[in-house]
């Protein structure tokens, strides 16, 4: 077991190492000579809180230090684990400190007393650099406890009592400074027990491609969840190894579920535990690791390419589509079981609830003024329809994913019968609905946007519904019941109500026009006239947002390369020091 897992942990890096030879521990000699650390580190760690204990030297002593020391010593046996030269416990405490002393007098030579924090950072940096192979972009942090540098400086790597996520965060932060950027990271064989030890990987190495956590003590999916939190998730991770952790379990029956749970969390994952993940690919842009894409001009247009257009059908007669939709929605409202005929025997159906409040409808007060809106409840959709909403941004469970997709016409009817009653006012104003349809081969795609009244609440909902239709085969139930087409796929999205004005044909406004004539004070308008046309609107916007006058707004924008957000941020920094004449 141990030998297979440790060899598999090495396999992760086959690609990275191919053609470059194996990582040689002695690489560190080269890197150490390559000026490790330096002063740079001091400014990078300012965020860490300074602790008074940082200032103590080994020889120094005091009551507070003694008590800390005692508690430390009683709870740990780190030194015997390492069997290395036994430094004083006080030294350990001092070196725990990751903060630095910032009270050093500029120009004065640093004393050992004030320089302790920097020294610790330098030790970490020495260690991280010694483990980096630039050619393969491989940071090998395996078996850190055995490392001579770790032992020499008593660095608090995972597995040493008293270590915390903080120390690993330092390593990953230093790793983020390595050039070329780290592509592969191995933390195999490190006694890592908690997701906290690895939670900062995504923050510091967001573009990481390969990660091995083999042969650690990660037990729960929650530990992995910490790797993929909101902003710090590893969206570009291609390969992950978790073999030799309790989380994987020994029962092969659970392996499927484990793999699904992991795969769901890492969108780019291709290999898990040395086995490929079956999936489909896209010609997606590869993540930019340099800044070349910044050379692309950002479009500055403030209008749309086209106005909102009317319903659009191509390759198909409007009659076929409207006959289908009229009959479909009439039956959907009145007699859903009759729809059995129009679904293909292998048809698919699902519905999704988009429960977010539409921003424009909220501003217009539609949900507070229209009748009965407040009585609408989402649970009839979220949990209804014999399997519940299939909004895949919410559905995490693999079983639920399968249950909420209804395959086969009998299952489709079972599902729609479990949904709330509806009234689609198809005989009413045609502008209440909008559709786009096109023919591809013999397959017809139709998307309908519109609204219905949900019963028994009698309040409006908006919906989008996409159908994939095929000509009804001669011997099909659909044909026999007089349908020209039959349904292959049917996807319904139910949303909070928005007015059908959204698709009224005509020009659409991108941004409110803030610099329009008459809306500005006369003095501002006159001053704006002196600004060249292309920049006038931006200047006017900044004036409105900040209260700056035109002269200072132009200065501020110029100093920030006409980057509006930077200008705003810059203003926020300096506004306290501006005098009255900077403002309108």
């Amino acid at each position, binding site marked *: 077991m141990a030998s297979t897992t440790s060899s598999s942990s090495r396999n992760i890096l086959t690609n990275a190492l191919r053609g470059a030879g194996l990582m040689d521990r002695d690489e560190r000699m080269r890197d150490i000579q390559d000026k490790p650390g330096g002063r740079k580190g001091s400014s990078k760690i300012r965020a860490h809180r300074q602790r008074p204990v940082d200032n103590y030297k080994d020889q120094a002593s005091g009551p507070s230090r003694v008590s800390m020391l005692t508690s430390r010593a009683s709870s740990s046996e780190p030194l015997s684990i390492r069997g290395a030269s036994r430094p004083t416990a006080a030294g350990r405490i001092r070196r725990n400190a990751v903060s630095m002393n910032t009270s050093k007098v500029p120009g004065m030579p640093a004393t050992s007393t004030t320089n302790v924090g920097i020294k610790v950072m330098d030790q970490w940096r020495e260690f991280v650099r010694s483990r980096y192979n630039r050619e393969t972009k491989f940071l090998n942090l395996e078996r850190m406890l055995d490392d001579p540098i770790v032992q020499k400086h008593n660095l608090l790597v995972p597995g040493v009592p008293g270590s915390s996520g903080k120390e690993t965060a330092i390593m990953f932060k230093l790793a983020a400074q390595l050039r070329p950027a780290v592509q592969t990271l191995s933390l195999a064989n490190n006694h890592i027990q908690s997701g906290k030890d690895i939670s900062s990987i995504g923050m510091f190495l967001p573009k990481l491609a390969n990660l091995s956590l083999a042969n650690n003590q990660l037990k729960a999916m929650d530990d992995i969840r910490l790797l993929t939190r909101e902003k710090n998730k590893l969206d570009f991770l291609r390969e992950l190894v978790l073999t030799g952790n309790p989380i994987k379990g020994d029962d092969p029956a659970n392996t499927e579920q484990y793999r699904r749970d992991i795969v*769901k969390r890492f*969108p780019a994952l*291709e*290999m898990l535990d040395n086995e*490929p993940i*079956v*999936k*489909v*690919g896209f010609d*997606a*842009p590869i993540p*930019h690791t340099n800044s070349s*894409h910044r050379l*692309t001009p*950002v*479009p500055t247009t*403030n*209008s749309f390419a086209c106005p*909102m*257009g009317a319903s*659009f059908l*191509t390759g198909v007669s409007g009659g076929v589509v409207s006959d289908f939709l009229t009959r479909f929605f009439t039956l959907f409202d009145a007699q859903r079981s009759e729809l059995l005929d129009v679904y*293909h025997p*292998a048809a*698919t159906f699902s519905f*999704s609830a988009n429960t977010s409040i*539409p*921003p424009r*409808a909220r*501003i217009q007060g539609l949900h507070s003024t229209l009748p009965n809106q407040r009585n609408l409840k989402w649970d009839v959709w979220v949990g209804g329809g014999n399997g519940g909403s299939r*909004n*895949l*941004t919410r559905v995490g469970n693999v079983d639920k*994913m*399968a249950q909420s997709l209804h*395959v086969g016409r009998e299952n489709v009817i079972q599902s729609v019968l479990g949904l709330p009653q509806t009234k689609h006012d198809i005989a009413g104003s045609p502008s209440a609905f909008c559709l*786009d349809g*096109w023919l*591809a081969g013999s397959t017809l*795609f139709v*998307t309908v*946007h519109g609204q219905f009244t949900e019963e028994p609440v009698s309040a409006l909902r*908006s919906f*989008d519904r*996409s159908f*994939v239709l*095929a000509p009804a085969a001669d011997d099909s139930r659909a044909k026999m019941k007089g349908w020209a087409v039959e349904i*292959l*796929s049917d*996807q319904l*999205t139910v*949303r909070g109500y928005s007015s059908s004005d*959204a*698709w009224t044909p005509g020009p659409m*406004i*991108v*941004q*409110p026009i803030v610099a329009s004539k008459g809306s500005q004070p006369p003095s501002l308008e006159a001053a704006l006239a002196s600004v060249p046309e292309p920049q006038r609107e931006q200047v006017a*916007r900044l004036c409105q*947002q900040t209260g700056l006058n035109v002269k200072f707004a132009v200065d501020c924008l110029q100093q920030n390369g006409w980057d509006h957000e930077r200008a705003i941020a810059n203003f926020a920094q300096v506004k306290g020091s501006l005098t009255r004449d900077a403002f309108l």
Partner: protein
Amino acid sequence: MSTLTRDDIEIATRAADQFTRLYYSTYDSPARTIDLPKFYRPSSAITWNGNPFAGANGIRELLADTPITKHEVQCFDCHPIPGSQPPNLLVTVSGTVTHGNPPTVPSTNNAKSKNVDGQPRVFSQTFVLVPDPSAIPAKTGEVAKYYISADALRFVG
């Protein structure tokens, strides 16, 4: 026509998840006019609010004349369409999109706060994704490479 297997459903779901993330982050990126057309082929049919565009060039043209965007995907769903193997995928997405710079904090002035200009719109977008028989899967475990064969977008709120 064979019935869909659980595997088909899972692969489709995973594909949609990956697709929506990639597609909208590309759409919102400064390099969108270079990167977004890669999802399309010359034959792709596109309708944007009822206006037709054709193929990768069409989307490039459209993007060149569209304000910068910020999409928030709130809801998506995906079916493997019965009758094809590997299956074509029907993906529907809804969410909000902000055009141009995000709106400033709504004014306390009552009359002004009713102004929806510059506020996020609700969008609904339907894609048909199909496997490209000529593309060689490049990555480990990839069963096929997909592209957008059809794309219909509407602002709906």
